[in-house]
């Protein structure tokens, strides 16, 4: 139990997926102009990340490992994720239209988001069991949400700022992310994996 909590805190704050692991930077920069959309994206990522990690976990343990097809991991995972997102889109529209309205527009963005594939592969690389995989993917997703949400808040404030021309746009976004990452270094060692 303690181990799981430590894993959760580590993947949320200390080894934050965006700020420390460098995954999902593009949507982080792209979908963070407003806090509402950032939150939507964050929740969508959590949702898809957990689903994708679990499914790819089963595929790895149930199919690839027994058949010794480990080298097909990349190709299988990405296809599974693409299919999953498609299916999610369709079923969500039918079963939970409200949820679809909130998260639907972010789903296509997520297919090509490296966080999802990255976390699925990391789960296998780190040899997590099912519960750990669940905790890892969920808390990593939360970490993504935290990072993108506070980042969007800062960017909203930067709207009013008199940013020098060459820095406007992605440049200031990336640098701000760097400063966030600098601040998050304070969490180092809070828990030790």
């Amino acid at each position: 139990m303690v181990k799981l909590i430590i894993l959760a805190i580590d993947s949320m704050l200390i080894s934050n997926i965006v700020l420390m692991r460098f995954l999902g930077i593009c949507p982080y920069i792209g979908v963070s102009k407003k806090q509402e959309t950032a939150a939507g994206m964050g929740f969508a990522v959590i949702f898809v990340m957990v689903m994708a990690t679990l499914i790819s976990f089963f595929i790895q343990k149930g199919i690839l490992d027994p058949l010794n097809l480990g080298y097909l991991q990349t190709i299988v995972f990405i296809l599974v994720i693409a299919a999953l997102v498609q299916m999610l889109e369709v079923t969500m529209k039918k079963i939970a239209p409200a949820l679809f309205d909130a998260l639907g527009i972010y789903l296509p963005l997520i297919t090509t988001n490296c966080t999802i594939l990255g976390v699925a592969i990391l789960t296998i690389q780190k040899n997590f069991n099912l519960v750990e995989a669940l905790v890892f993917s969920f808390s990593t997703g939360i970490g993504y949400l935290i990072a993108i949400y506070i980042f969007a808040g800062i960017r909203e404030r930067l709207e009013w700022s008199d940013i020098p021309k060459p820095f406007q746009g992605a440049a200031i976004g990336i640098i701000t992310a760097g400063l966030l990452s600098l601040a998050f270094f304070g969490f180092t060692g809070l828990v030790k994996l």
Partner: protein
Amino acid sequence: MADNKFIVKPAPFLKKPTDVKMIMWTVVLALIPTTVWAIYLYRLNAVIVILSTILFTELFEMLFLKIRGSKKVIATSFDGSAFVTGLLLALNLPSSAPWWLCAAGAFVAMLFGKHIFGGLGHNPFNPALIARVFLLLSFPTLMTTWKQGMSVDAMTYATPLGILKTDGIEAVKSMDLWRLFAGLPVSGVGGGSIGEISELAVLIGGLLLIVLRVIPFFIPLVFILTVYVFTWIFNAANPSVYASPMFHMVTGGLFLGAFFMATDMVTTPITPKGKIIFAFGCGLITSLIRLFGAYPEGVSFAILIMETLTPTIDKVTKLKKFGA
């Protein structure tokens, strides 16, 4: 009479109670006790650190203002804000910091901390703290080796919090808390940043700021109280591992941070409620880092981390309108 030229501008038509310059220079004034104490303890070393940091900060301020095409480079660079940043950065450095470290800090503070975002008022993070953390991560050895105040030898020692983190509670049990509070040398203990040695000196300046209404009293109060309560809880639960709350009060940069950095209005929430949440968060994270984190001291990080939340806090603490 008839040839008067009248100026038309919007109201009000009165003398302002205060302006930015005055606020900033008041902060400088309030930092004088700390500065004087630092110089008394570290003599020439402190003078060099303080002077070179301020000098470079002002230089980079001018340089970046110039590059950004400001029309009033000189006037703007002496509005006091860069001076405050420089002085606070200096007070956050060890007395042994070489001049180039001061210059590097000043550069980072002014570029990444301030002018990239458009200068005074626009920066989301505290420039002095950005610089401090940048230096801490970049030059950990230089930034964590401390000389003892007033001593002539070149020995370096750890700070009380460093000793607590490295050697455990037994090593700090016998320290005289009053001496630590006043900033007097304690044997076997290194001072720390030149501005964090004497809580007393910081307190004098801080109270001045409160009296002059430059900062609201509740930010430092909530910040410090939160650290007190949290460290008290852990100390009460397990005194053989966790140091006493009073020990946490008189060590590290808690007072300097609470009075002078968590109060930088540019980077902290704007409403009173927001400021209280902010100060509480700072206290909480400071305690967590001190008790469990890798770093012996957490004030700088805590303030920076809370600053990432400033816009969000501002949003959720909107004021109630009169009559709503």
